């Protein structure tokens, strides 16, 4: 028997055996996922996998051009090679064209693996080491082995080239390569991301995210369930468990996480890896990426039926999250970190009653007064005593109305003197544009954003249903609000409770008015200004243009920060983070203000009351913080006033 005949027969056995083991591993992995709770199985999504992989996933990967090209070459080469290898060596289709194709695909993969290797020579801190450092070598060995193996078959080299020595080398290389690339795929090697990732793309819990869609609202839970929230890994939905397995440890989430940068004990990548450890059982000693700041790797372990918090993950880790969604947005595998965190927070709050910091007080206030700081609910409109606002209601003596074009949602800014200035500006602008609007007055409750993100789904649902039943008493076309958190809640999270409204953020609404020439802005001012994207307006709702359009209408050339739009850094005010107040090395708003200072802007325009408070909380000297509505009011050309002045002259 010649060495080539031996190779051919040996490969048939080896690859068939490897594929069998891979299949066994796949079934084992699926059994791990099936420990999770039931959730809709989107079978049709499986058909979408190639499209989602090529379009949606690569759209995210392509934010790093080097890596996206590398991945196309490596992954494309690998998928193609694998199919060809199976056809050639398992099904023994000895077609010359397949041989040539395999030569090409393995070469493509080899070229890709060189670039992976180069990137891995001095890996940035967000990349995991350990088994991930082995991967480029495995890729190289796999592709090179098959390339050399295929050369004689194409006739470029005479058969039996290299004799038994090369044959032995090739066998070794192929065992390594196939071990990593096939077997490792379902037995927990780095290639797991390809297997779990593909299924995750198809069976994703938020199918709406694909094809440029959006799905950012938290999902409601049944409050009469035996257990509220996630205590153990098996309490996650099965497709959440699957999603954790899809993680490729690229660390883009880590690069974008404001809490990680602030030195708070959260690293989204480690959190997802810990969830994998929880699901499969074991400890975190082998984790080869950045730790949670301040917490040593290797000190925690978990299992599928072992409680997560304070065993596998410290509670401070969960409560450091600002729910800014930067990790979710940056994740090429479309993993939903925030969902997982809120699920675990729900158990902490609703089952254990352990919301840290001021959380417990805030939640009690929301129950007793419908606002987080416990102000007298009948004083909600005190700030507007001089505004003569029209209020929705049925009392005609008080000139209440049941119908208006716009419902102006005030939000908890009503109780905050700084943000009352923004509200006053909005009211002046609405009046300047002759908008027919009314407010809910004392009948308006907190939107529930804070309660929900602190894990108190019960309070959220009470506030949401109360607000919906209040609003359903009246007729209006649009809800306008200055608070992106309320905007997001009412627009995306009230839907599950029967609240379907046309909701606009004030920037979006004013942009329309400016477009229709109903508001005229002076564009002669030269302001050194930058704009800070609120997470709940930008990443959660994709609104990046309206605020910029308004600023440009005032003649401002925005000095954009490096991290703006979808990669904007959070102000630190979301998700109840200021309430739970987990200590770190620095404060998130200080870091954001440093981003502002870097642009040499003198004003930072904001579009959210929370951002306003967080950024104004940075010690002076610092750029001035102004809401876009305030800037607009400064630049407003009011025809009425001008006419009056003209008449007097």
């Amino acid at each position, binding site marked *: 028997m010649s060495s080539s005949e031996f190779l051919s027969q040996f490969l048939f056995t080896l690859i068939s055996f490897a594929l069998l083991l891979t299949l066994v591993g796949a079934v084992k992995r699926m059994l791990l996922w099936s420990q999770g709770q039931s959730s809709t199985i989107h079978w049709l999504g499986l058909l979408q996998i190639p499209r989602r992989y090529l379009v949606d996933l690569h759209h995210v990967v392509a934010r790093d051009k080097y890596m996206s090209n590398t991945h196309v070459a490596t992954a494309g080469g690998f998928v193609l090679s694998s199919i060809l290898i199976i056809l050639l060596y398992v099904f023994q289709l000895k077609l010359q064209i397949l041989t040539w194709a395999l030569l090409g695909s393995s070469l493509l993969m080899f070229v890709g693996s060189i670039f992976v290797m180069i990137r891995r020579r001095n890996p940035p801190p967000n990349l995991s080491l350990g088994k991930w450092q082995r991967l480029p070598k495995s890729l190289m060995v796999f592709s090179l082995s098959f390339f050399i193996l295929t050369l004689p078959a194409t006739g470029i080299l005479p058969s039996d080239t290299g004799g038994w020595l090369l044959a032995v080398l090739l066998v070794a290389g192929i065992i390594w390569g196939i071990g990593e690339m096939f077997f490792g795929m379902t037995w927990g090697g780095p290639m797991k991301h390809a297997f779990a990732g593909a299924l995750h793309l198809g069976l994703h819990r938020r199918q709406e995210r694909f094809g440029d869609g959006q799905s950012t609202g938290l999902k409601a839970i049944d*409050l*009469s369930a035996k*257990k*509220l929230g996630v205590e153990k890994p098996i309490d996650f939905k099965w497709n959440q468990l699957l999603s954790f397995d899809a993680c490729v440890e690229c660390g883009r989430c880590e690069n974008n996480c404001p809490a990680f940068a602030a030195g708070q004990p959260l690293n989204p990548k480690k959190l997802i890896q810990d969830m994998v450890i929880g699901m499969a059982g074991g400890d975190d000693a082998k984790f080869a990426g950045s730790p949670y700041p301040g917490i040593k790797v290797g000190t925690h372990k978990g299992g599928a039926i072992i409680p997560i918090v304070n065993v596998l993950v410290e509670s401070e880790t969960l409560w450091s999250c600002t729910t800014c969604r930067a990790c979710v947005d940056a994740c090429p595998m479309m993993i939903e970190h925030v969902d997982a965190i809120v699920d675990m927070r729900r158990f902490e*709050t*609703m*089952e*254990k*009653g*352990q*919301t840290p910091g001021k*959380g*417990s007080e805030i*939640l*009690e206030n929301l*129950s*007793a*007064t*419908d606002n987080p700081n*416990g*102000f*007298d*609910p*009948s004083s909600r409109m005190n700030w507007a005593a001089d505004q003569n606002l029209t209020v929705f209601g049925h009392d005609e003596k008080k000139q209440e109305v049941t119908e208006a074009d716009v419902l102006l949602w005030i939000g908890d800014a009503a109780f905050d003197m700084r943000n009352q200035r923004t509200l006053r500006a909005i009211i002046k602008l609405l009046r300047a544009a002759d908008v027919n609007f009314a407010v809910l007055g004392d009948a308006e409750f907190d939107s529930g954003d804070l309660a929900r993100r602190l894990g*108190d*789904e*019960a*309070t959220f649902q009470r506030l949401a249903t109360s607000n919906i039943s209040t609003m359903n008493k009246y007729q209006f076309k649009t809800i306008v609000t200055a608070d992106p958190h309320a905007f997001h809640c009412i627009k995306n999270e009230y839907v599950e409770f029967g609240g379907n409204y046309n909701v606009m953020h004030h920037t979006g609404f004013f942009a329309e008015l400016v477009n229709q020439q109903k508001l005229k802005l002076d564009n002669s001012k030269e302001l050194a200004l930058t704009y800070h994207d609120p997470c709940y307006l930008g990443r959660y709702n994709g609104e990046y243009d309206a605020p910029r359009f308004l600023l440009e209408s005032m003649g401002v050339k925005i000095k954009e920060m490096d991290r703006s739009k979808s990669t904007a850094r959070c102000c630190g005010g979301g998700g109840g983070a200021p309430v739970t107040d987990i200590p770190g090395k620095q404060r998130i708003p200080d870091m954001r203000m440093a981003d502002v200072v870097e642009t040499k802007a003198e004003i930072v325009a904001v579009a959210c009351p929370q951002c306003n408070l967080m950024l104004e909380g940075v010690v002076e000297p610092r750029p001035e913080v102004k809401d876009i509505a305030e800037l607009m009011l400064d630049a407003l050309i009011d025809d009425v006033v001008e006419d009056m002045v003209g008449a007097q002259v």
Partner: protein
Amino acid sequence: MSNNNLSVISLVSIGEHPTSRRPRRAEQDARAIELGIKLVGDNLQTLHAGELSDDASQQTALRSYLGMGLTEINLLEMPENADAVLVIAEHLKQKNPDIILTGVRAENGESSGMLPYLLAEQLDMAMVTSIAEILSIDEVNKQAEVLQALPRGQRRKLKVDLPFIASVDMAAALPRQSAFGPAMRGQFEATLGATFTDEESSDWQIVDAKKRPKRLKIIKAKTAADRFKAATAKASGGGGKVVHGVEESAQAILDLLVEEGLV
């Protein structure tokens, strides 16, 4: 602390939020529960005198005690016009508790703060007011060491014989957070209370309390340090002199009236 043989009963009422006036867990009662749980853990018994209201917000308020980790609350059912003191006393006589915990005063209703005193009288027990903590319990000698809260953060350590009633002050440890899940799943165990009708209160007229007029503090301090002192210093009681003799007493009163500019 392991006080497994100790029988502790905490009385809970439905409180009222000072601004929204909505029912809630009463702040002092919640502190009493916290104190009780720390003392005897799951063995803490909780008693509420009254029926389970159909009103959802009343129920939620009562359930929020369950949310602190209690498995059940005993309801001592009694009609609206019953005299709670007598009904509770009758019930407790059969229970023989070692310690009874209450708040200092209710957040609504009569809010006289008399309940613990009247109970102590009925049950012939010692009564300790405004405690902040139970430091230790000597089950052999049937004695407890408690910390009583006095104004301005002062504390007094007292020894009291078991059994006793203690009213729990706001200075006691903050109550733990009430969690929604356990609150919804906790049980109410109803017992029918004895019938003691409150004859007197039926003739009463109830009006909202008015705020008592408060003397304006005139601070003559000129420097920030003086103002700080005036704001934080303990109000002096004038030395608390005991005056004997008619002449001297009359003079002391007159002096005060002159000082206040009333004469």
